[in-house]
C-alpha cells in the first residue's frame, strides 16, 4: 500500500486541507449572505410592490353586461325583448390555429363565411373575461350534435346568453329600431359623453329608432365579477359579484293591434292591385295573343302610415313599408343579405314615416284654407267660380284636375271636392308669408316629435330659403303652386300626422312621442311628458276649427267628396279627412313594375290624412302610398280599418275613452309583477 496507509490523524496534509476548507466555508457564508440580502430586498424591502403586483396578476374584474330594458307596446306586447340564445363560443387562449378550428367545427355544424368573418373581426377585441362567439342562435339539433361531440372539439363551448329579440320582426323595425355591435364611431361618442363606464361589458348599442333615442335608459348599468384567474386567464373562482342593473322598460303608445291592422290592409291592397294587374294582363292577352302572357307580381306597396292619439299625443302607429327584419343586426347581418336590402330600389332601410319627404299635395288645402279664412283672405260663404283653369298674371294658366271645373263653389266645397283652382286663387291672395306662418303653426318645416330617431324637418319654403338654396328670388308663381301643396313643399308622413292632430286638437300643441312611460327598478312609473313642441295655434275666430272639421267630414260623407269610397254605412263614428295626390318625383327615373299595367296615374303618391271621431277626435292618421291609386281608394279604407281597431271595443262598439284615461297604466311584465304581487299579498 502507498501513502494511504498513514494514520489519518497525524497526516501532514490534514492541516492544509483544513485551512482550505475554512476558506471555502468562508466563501460559502459570503455567498449565502448575498442570497440573504437579495431575498431580503425582494421579500422585505420591496414587499409592498410585489404584493400588489401579485394581486394584480391573479385578480381580474370581469364586467357583467346588464340586461337591456324591454320595449312594450300599449297592450303589453313585447316589441323588443331579450331571449336566451345558445352560442358556440371559442376560448381564445386555447386556440392556436383558427382555420383548423373552423374545419373541425364545420364537421358538426354549418359555418357561413359571414360567421367566420364576424369571428375574425371580433376576436381581437375580446378581453380576458370573454369568449368569442363563433356561431350564435344554435338550434336544438345543433346543440345536441355539438354536445355529443364535445370531446372532439377542443377549445369551444356552448354558452347561453341573452340577446335582443324583436318578436314582430320587420313590423316595428322603423319605430323601435335595432341594436348592433358597437363600432369605433359608437365608442368615440361614448367616450365623448363620458359614458365609457356604463358600457364596460356591453358589446352592443342602440343603432336606430327608440333603441338609440332611449339608449341611456335601456342600457342599465353593468355589474362586476371579481374573479381569480390563472396565468392563462382562465377563471378559477369567483370572489365577489356585483349584479348589473337591468335597463328601464319602455312602454309605448304604439298599438301593435292598430299597426298590424294597417299592415294587413296594406297587404290586402297589394293583393288587390296584383289581381287587377293580372286581370288586365289576361284581358290584353286574350285580345292580342301575339305577345306572350306575363305573370304579374306586385312585390309591395311602398309608403308610410302614422297614427297619433289626439288626446295623449302618443304615436299609435308608425309604419314604413317595405321594412326589414332587425333581428339579424343583433348578431350581425350577413354581408350578402345586407347588400340585397341596402341596394334594393324599394329602400327598405329608409324610414319613410319620418325621413321620407313628399309634396303634401291636396292634403295641405284644409291647413292653408284655415289660415286664409281666419286671416280674412277668403270667407266661408263667398262663392268662387271654378272653370277648370286658373289664369296666372303672366298669361300662363293652370288646369284643375277636373275638366270643366267644379262650378260655383265655396271654401267647404273647395275642400270637399279638392278644387285646385280655388286654392291657386287663395294662395295668390294670401302671398307667401301668411301661408308660411300658417303652416309653421301646424309644425311643418320643423322637427316637433320628441323621440323619433333622425326625423327630417321637411320644407316649409320661404323667400330666404329660396334665396339661400336656389339663388333665386321668390316668384308669385311659386306661391300659387303652394296652394295645392306642390312646388317647394316637402313634408314627412309624420309631420302630416302631427299637423292633422293639431287640426283635430283645434290648435292645441302637444309633444308627439312614442314612449308613454318607463319603469324604474323599484317599480316607480315615470311618465315621459315633454312640454308641447310649440305654442298653441290660436285662431282669430276659434269657430273656424269646427267649420274646417265639418268641411273635412264632407270629404268622406258628401257625394262629391274625394274619399266617399269609404263605406260609411256601418261606421260607429264619423271621420274627417282629406285626400291628396302628389307627383312622385323620386320615381321619374325608374322604370316601375305597375307602370305599364295600370297607367301613368299610378306614378303619383296617394295621400290621406284623417281623424275620428270627427266630433270628438281621438285618433289622427296620415297615410302615403307611393305609386298608388287615388288617395281615397286605397289609403282611405286602410285608415278606416285602423280607426275601427283603435276606437271600437270587442263588441264593435265605440270605446268609452273618458274612463280609460283614468285607469292606471296596465303593467304585465314579470319583473314588475313581483312588486305588484307583494302589494296584493300585503292586502
Amino acid at each position, binding site marked *: 500500500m502507498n*501513502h*494511504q496507509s*498513514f494514520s*489519518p490523524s497525524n*497526516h*501532514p*496534509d*490534514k492541516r*492544509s*486541507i*483544513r485551512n*482550505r*476548507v475554512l476558506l*471555502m*466555508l468562508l466563501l*460559502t*457564508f459570503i*455567498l*449565502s449572505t*448575498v*442570497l*440573504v*440580502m*437579495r*431575498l*431580503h*430586498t*425582494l*421579500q*422585505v*424591502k*420591496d*414587499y409592498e*410592490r*410585489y*404584493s400588489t*403586483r*401579485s*394581486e394584480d*396578476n*391573479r385578480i381580474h374584474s370581469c364586467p357583467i353586461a346588464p340586461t337591456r330594458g324591454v320595449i312594450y307596446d300599449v297592450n303589453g306586447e313585447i316589441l323588443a325583448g331579450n331571449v336566451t340564445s345558445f352560442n358556440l363560443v371559442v376560448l381564445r387562449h386555447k386556440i392556436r390555429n383558427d382555420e383548423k378550428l373552423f374545419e373541425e367545427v364545420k364537421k358538426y355544424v354549418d359555418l357561413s363565411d359571414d360567421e367566420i368573418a364576424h369571428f375574425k373581426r371580433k376576436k381581437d377585441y375580446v378581453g380576458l373575461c370573454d369568449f368569442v362567439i363563433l356561431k350564435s342562435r344554435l338550434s336544438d339539433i345543433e346543440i345536441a350534435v355539438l354536445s355529443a361531440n364535445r370531446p372532439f372539439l377542443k377549445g369551444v363551448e356552448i354558452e347561453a346568453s341573452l340577446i335582443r329579440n324583436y318578436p314582430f320582426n320587420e313590423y316595428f323595425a322603423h319605430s323601435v329600431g335595432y341594436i348592433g355591435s358597437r363600432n369605433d364611431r359608437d365608442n368615440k361618442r361614448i367616450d365623448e359623453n363620458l359614458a365609457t363606464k356604463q358600457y364596460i361589458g356591453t358589446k352592443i348599442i342602440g343603432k336606430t329608432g327608440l333603441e338609440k333615442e332611449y339608449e341611456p335608459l335601456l342600457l342599465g348599468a353593468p355589474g362586476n365579477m371579481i374573479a*381569480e*384567474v*390563472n*396565468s*392563462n386567464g382562465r377563471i*378559477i373562482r369567483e370572489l365577489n359579484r356585483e349584479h348589473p342593473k337591468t335597463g328601464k322598460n319602455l312602454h309605448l303608445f304604439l298599438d301593435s293591434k292598430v299597426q298590424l291592422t294597417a299592415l294587413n290592409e296594406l297587404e290586402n291592397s297589394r293583393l288587390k292591385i296584383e289581381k287587377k294587374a293580372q286581370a288586365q294582363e289576361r284581358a290584353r292577352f286574350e285580345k292580342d295573343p301575339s305577345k306572350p302572357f306575363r305573370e304579374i307580381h306586385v312585390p309591395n306597396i311602398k309608403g308610410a302610415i302614422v297614427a297619433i292619439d289626439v288626446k295623449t299625443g302618443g304615436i299609435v302607429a308608425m309604419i314604413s313599408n317595405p321594412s326589414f327584419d332587425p333581428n339579424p343586426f343583433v348578431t350581425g347581418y350577413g354581408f350578402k343579405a345586407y347588400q340585397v336590402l341596402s341596394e334594393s330600389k324599394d329602400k327598405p332601410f329608409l324610414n319613410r314615416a319620418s325621413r321620407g319627404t313628399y309634396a303634401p299635395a291636396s292634403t295641405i288645402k284644409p291647413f292653408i284654407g284655415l289660415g286664409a279664412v281666419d286671416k280674412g283672405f277668403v270667407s266661408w260663404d263667398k262663392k268662387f267660380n271654378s272653370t277648370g283653369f286658373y289664369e296666372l298674371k303672366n298669361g300662363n294658366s293652370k288646369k284643375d284636375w277636373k275638366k270643366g271645373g267644379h262650378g260655383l263653389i265655396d271654401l267647404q266645397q273647395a275642400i270637399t271636392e279638392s278644387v285646385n283652382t280655388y286654392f291657386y286663387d287663395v294662395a295668390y291672395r294670401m302671398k307667401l308669408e301668411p301661408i308660411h306662418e300658417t303652416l309653421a303653426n301646424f309644425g311643418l318645416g320643423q322637427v316637433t316629435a320628441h323621440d323619433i330617431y333622425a326625423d327630417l324637418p321637411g320644407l316649409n319654403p320661404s323667400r330666404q330659403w329660396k334665396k339661400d338654396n336656389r339663388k333665386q328670388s321668390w316668384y308669385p308663381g311659386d306661391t300659387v303652386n303652394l296652394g295645392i301643396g306642390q312646388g317647394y313643399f316637402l313634408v314627412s308622413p309624420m309631420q302630416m300626422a302631427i299637423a292633422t292632430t293639431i287640426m283635430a286638437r283645434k290648435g292645441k300643441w302637444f309633444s308627439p312621442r312614442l314612449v308613454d312611460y318607463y319603469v324604474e327598478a323599484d317599480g316607480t312609473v315615470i311618465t315621459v311628458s315633454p312640454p308641447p313642441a310649440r305654442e298653441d295655434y290660436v285662431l282669430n275666430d276659434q269657430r273656424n276649427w269646427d267649420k274646417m272639421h265639418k268641411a273635412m267630414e264632407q270629404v268622406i260623407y258628401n257625394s262629391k267628396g274625394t274619399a266617399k269610397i269609404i263605406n260609411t254605412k256601418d261606421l260607429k263614428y264619423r271621420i274627417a279627412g282629406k285626400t291628396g295626390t302628389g307627383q312622385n318625383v323620386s320615381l321619374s327615373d325608374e322604370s316601375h313594375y305597375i307602370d305599364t299595367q295600370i297607367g301613368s296615374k299610378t306614378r303619383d303618391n296617394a295621400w290621406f290624412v284623417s281623424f275620428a271621431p270627427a266630433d270628438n277626435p281621438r285618433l289622427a292618421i296620415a297615410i302615403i302610398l307611393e305609386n298608388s291609386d287615388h288617395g281615397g281608394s286605397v289609403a282611405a279604407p286602410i285608415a278606416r280599418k285602423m280607426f275601427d281597431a283603435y276606437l271600437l271595443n270587442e263588441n264593435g262598439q265605440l270605446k268609452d275613452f273618458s274612463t280609460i284615461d283614468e285607469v292606471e297604466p296596465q303593467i304585465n311584465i314579470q319583473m314588475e309583477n313581483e312588486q305588484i304581487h307583494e302589494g296584493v299579498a300585503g292586502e
Partner: protein
Amino acid sequence: MNNSDFSRQTSPQGLRKPVSIYQKAHIDLPLLLIVFVLIGLGLIALYSADYNGLHKFNRQLANLSVGVVVMLFFSRVHPRHFQYWSPIVYLIGLVMLVLVLYTPLGVEANKATRWLKVPIIGRFQPSEIIKLSLPIVVAGYLSRFAVPVSIKYVAVALLIIVIPTYLINRQPDLGTSLLIAASGLVVIFFAGLRWRWIFLSIIIGIFGSIAMWHYGLEVYQQKRVLAVLDSSDTLGASYHANQAAIAIGSGGWSGKGFLQGTQSRLNFVPENHTDYIITVIAEEFGFVGFLVLLIIYLLLIIRGFYIATQAYNNFQRYLAASLTFTFFIYVFVNIAMVSGILPVVGVPLPLVSYGGTSVVTLLASLGVLMSISTHRHNE
C-alpha cells in the same frame, strides 16, 4: 478484495476507537437527518406546486426512494472502490458524450442534444455520469502527488476537466458544463494548488472581468449586473424572471401560508416544481421559510466540510470537500438565478426540485460522502 473485506469485519478491533452502531451500518447520522429534512421540505413545496393531481409529487416519492437506496448503497462501498472504478466510468461517460453529439443515438429536445437513447435501458443524460465521476477521477489523480501539487499535474487535471466540459457545452448545456468544471476545479483547489497560482488566477480573473465588462458586455447586460441588488429594475426582465420575483417578493416576511401561494398555484411561475421551486417556498413560507431552508443547506455544507477534514486520506478529503462545495454551488446558482442575480441556467435546487436524475445523482454523491465519513477508520 471481497475476501479481504470480509476478513476485516471479523478481525478484532480492540485498539481502535469505539465504533458507533451507525458507523457500523455506514450511516452518517447528522448528514442523513439533514438530507431527510431537506427532502421533507422539498416534498412540502412540491405538494403545493403540484397540488392539482399530485402526479409529480408521487413520482418524486419514487425518485427519492430510489435515490435514498442508492445513497445507502454507496455509503457501504469503500471509497477506494470509487477511486478504482471512477476512471473507467469517466471514460465510458466521455464515449457516451461523443455518441450523443456525433451519432444518431443522441436525442434532441428543446434545441439541445443531451439525451442518449440506448436500447433496453432507455434514455438518460451522460453528463450525469460525468457529474458523478469527474470529481472522483480528479481527486484520485491529484491525491497521488504530494501537497502542494506541481503545476504539470494540475495541467493534466485541467485536461481531465476541460474535455467533458467542452463536450457538454457543445450540447449545448452551459449550466451543467460550468457546474462540472467547477466540481473539478474545486478538487484542484483542495488538492493544494500553490497559493501563487491561486492569486495569479484571481488577478487574471479580475482583469478578465474588467476587460469583459468593457468589451464583452452590451449596455443592457451591464445594467443587469449592476441591478443585481436592486429589484426595481425587473421591468426589463423576462416574463419568467418577473413572475419569479413577484412570487418571492409577495411572500413577505412570513409568506402567504401553505397552499396559499397565488403565483405558484395559478401557474404564473413556470417550472415551479423544478428549477423555480424556491419561489413556492419563498411565496408560501416567506423570508423566514427561505432562511430556514438556507440554514439547513449550510448545516449540510458544514457537515460535509467536517467529513472532509476528518477523512482517512487525501483522496477522500479532496473528494468530500469537492462534493460538498459543488453541492453548495448548486444551491447558490439556483437561488441566485431564480431571484434574478445570475442569468438563467438550468440548475435544480438540490434535493428539493422535482426530477429523477438530479435527485438520484445528488443522493448518490451524498452516499459517497457518507461512505467517506463511515470509512474514515479505513475499515
